[in-house]
């Protein structure tokens, strides 16, 4: 088949306008498809994230501002068997609603952060700078790029003024949209005993015991205090928080599928036009001795090639876009990154090739089955 490649390529180049339009159209639609499915990838990654953590939240609450757990709950939770570590987190957001430009503050005990976030890598600044300033903040890479934030800078958002002690990067989905700061700052620098946390992150000694530990925490707090809690694995917590976005994300899936439909139509139309233009040519090839099957394969290869080229361009464009302009959608303080994973990109390319196959199948089959004499006329 390789020896026929120049013929296939020349046919594509011989009809430049048609090939160009088809490739561009396919590229744009594949870009769109990959873009909308990159949020699926981000969601998938977020929900697949480590499940060795529990999140303790106030019962029946959702918006971070409505969950106010007293700081002394930390010691209570720490005393539960199976709990390895506890981190109180005060969450302040500038916008509770779904947005592409949310600022999320996580206020934590400054000295504990380095212990519980060892995977964080600094692009500038360090832990010491963060700990030494009561208004110090560590800014995630994505939000720093989005808002043009630099180390040493001060800024105010959602009534919170911070000084940037460092910018970090992280492989954990959504974490690069977070600004870590001191829990006291987000509590308006009240006395320690008056501090509140939005939630507690509980690290487990044995992740298999998650349900048991969660039940124990809720039971103990309910037994002793008025403000009750609801503890669940982090994954389940995210699923709850993001439930409101699911409709939107579901809709974007349909957008992606319709894009695929349009690509099939675009490529099929292009192949049909090619086949109709080359009726006589195919008859000549059959006269020379090209079998109907060979002509089918030649046309299918052309179809797959044009679709694949469009798919490759679309894939490259998607990667370039998400690299140059990282995008995240946030709600209730939880962010989902648009991630073009290698798996997604591979699936996109595979899909392009498959589209070329199915779009070209019928016209290629018809071309291969054409009667020579009628076609020559």
């Amino acid at each position, binding site marked *: 088949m390789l020896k026929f490649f120049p013929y296939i390529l020349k046919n594509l180049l011989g009809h430049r306008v048609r090939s160009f339009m088809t490739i561009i*159209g396919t590229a*744009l639609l594949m870009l769109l498809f990959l873009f909308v499915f990159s949020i699926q990838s981000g969601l998938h990654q977020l929900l697949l994230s480590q499940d060795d953590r529990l999140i303790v939240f106030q019962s029946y*609450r959702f918006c971070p501002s409505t969950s106010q757990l007293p700081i002394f709950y930390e010691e209570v939770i720490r005393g539960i068997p199976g709990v390895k570590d506890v981190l109180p987190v005060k969450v302040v957001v500038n916008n*509770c609603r779904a947005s592409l430009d949310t600022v999320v503050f996580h206020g934590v005990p400054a000295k504990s952060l380095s212990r519980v976030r060892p995977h964080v890598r600094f692009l500038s600044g360090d832990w010491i700078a963060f700990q030494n300033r009561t208004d110090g903040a560590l800014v995630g890479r994505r939000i720093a790029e989005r808002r043009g934030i630099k180390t040493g800078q001060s800024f105010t958002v959602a009534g919170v003024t911070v000084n940037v002690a460092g910018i970090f990067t992280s492989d954990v989905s959504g974490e690069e949209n977070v600004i870590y700061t001191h829990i006291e700052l987000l509590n308006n620098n009240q006395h320690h005993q008056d501090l509140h946390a939005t939630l507690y992150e509980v690290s487990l000694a044995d992740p298999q015991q998650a349900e048991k530990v969660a039940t124990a925490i809720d039971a103990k707090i309910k037994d002793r205090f008025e403000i009750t809690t609801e503890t669940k694995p982090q994954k389940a917590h995210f699923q*709850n928080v993001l*439930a409101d976005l699911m409709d939107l994300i579901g809709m974007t899936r349909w957008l992606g599928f319709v894009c695929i439909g349009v690509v099939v139509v675009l490529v099929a139309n292009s192949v049909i*036009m090619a086949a109709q233009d080359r009726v006589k040519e195919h008859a000549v090839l059959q006269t020379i001795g090209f079998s109907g099957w060979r002509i089918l394969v030649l046309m299918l290869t052309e179809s797959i090639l044009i679709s694949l080229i469009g798919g490759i361009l679309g894939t490259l464009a998607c990667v370039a876009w998400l690299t140059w302009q990282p995008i995240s959608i946030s709600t209730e303080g939880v962010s989902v990154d648009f991630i073009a994973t290698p798996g997604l990109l591979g699936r996109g390319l595979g899909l392009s090739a498959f589209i070329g196959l199915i779009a070209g199948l019928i016209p290629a089959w018809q071309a291969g089955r054409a009667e020579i004499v009628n076609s020559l006329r």
Partner: protein
Amino acid sequence: MLKSSTPYGENMKLLPWDYGVRNLLRRPVRTVLTAFGLTLVVFLLFLVVGFVRGLEKSLEQSGDPEVVMIHNVNSAENLENSSISDEVTALARTEFAPQLIKHRTVPAVSPELTIASRVGVSDETKGPQLAVLRGVDWQKVFLVRRQVFLMEGTLPKQREVLVGRLAATKLGLSMNDLAVGGSLLIEGKPWKISGRFAAPGTLLEAELWLPLDELKVAMKRPNDISIVAMRFDPSGDRSKQMGFVDYFCRNRRPDLELMGSWEAAYYSSLQKHYGPMRSMTWLLLGLVAVAGACGAMNTMYAAVAGRVREFAALQSIGFSRRAIAASLLQESVILAALSTLVATGLALFLLQGIAVRFTMGAFSLQLDRTAILIGCSVGLGLGILGAIPPAWRAFRLSIVDALKAV
């Protein structure tokens, strides 16, 4: 046949109308495929425009232009975070009574407590979902919330709740789950559904309304509420009315940390939060439209390439290149128009009114006049755009070259 004159006094005959139509039927498979592709593109457009318009309209309509809300000064953009003393209700009634709408002698002042909380249903397989609860005073709320009306059941009594028409969508449940007579778990306790209300086109429809006093107790907020909503007399001077509110908040009771906002302005300001999302949406739509144009252009280029000699013959007969180009444009526009018509019909049938759950609320996809205008304009635009380059190519081809073409 249409006739028109050029500046040189010649007659410029256009090709017959049905020439374009018949040419579309010459290659039925191509025509149908292109039409199908365009239909999909325009349908997609309607889906997204409907979403954006639905969101925009629900934000527009949620804000009553006669209503002012008094809320916490620190929660100007997130009223869900607002917390003010419940004495503000009485203060507002006294302070602003002369400017407010009254029913008999009762001024339209509605204290409200808005809380986002998780709410469960009796079917435990369906886990608790985020709901927006609004505690209201039944004697007062309808004086202010004139968009709201009871469509089924009765107003709630003790431990009863009124559900909005889109509350089921918001909770990801079916209408049966929130049927009148059923129950919901709020703060771990069962509340009976006494009725259903409608507030067409507003975000209020996604809420659950409870008696204010009971909600305060349930949420352990005995002394505060979220906002006081007041309805001002529309015949009054709006700037003066807001002036009174500002004076009260800043000068009379600065200790309460209050602020007044026109409700319509508040919801308009929310629009800007969705600005990046809307821009992103339009960008994505632009990509789809360009792809659609590529498809249309492909078909029209093929139409030109396959008829070069035919055009030469037409020119020999006496038709101008302009007439031929116009005919090509006509073909493309007919195709696009048909596709747009089908897409519009499908969209109106399948998409109109579909409820979408979206943070802090739910709204219906809106294919209003603006949406249809946008969809149809883009659809027809694709037809024109798709034809221009090939028509230009046909326009530039001379008779001699055309006759030589194979």
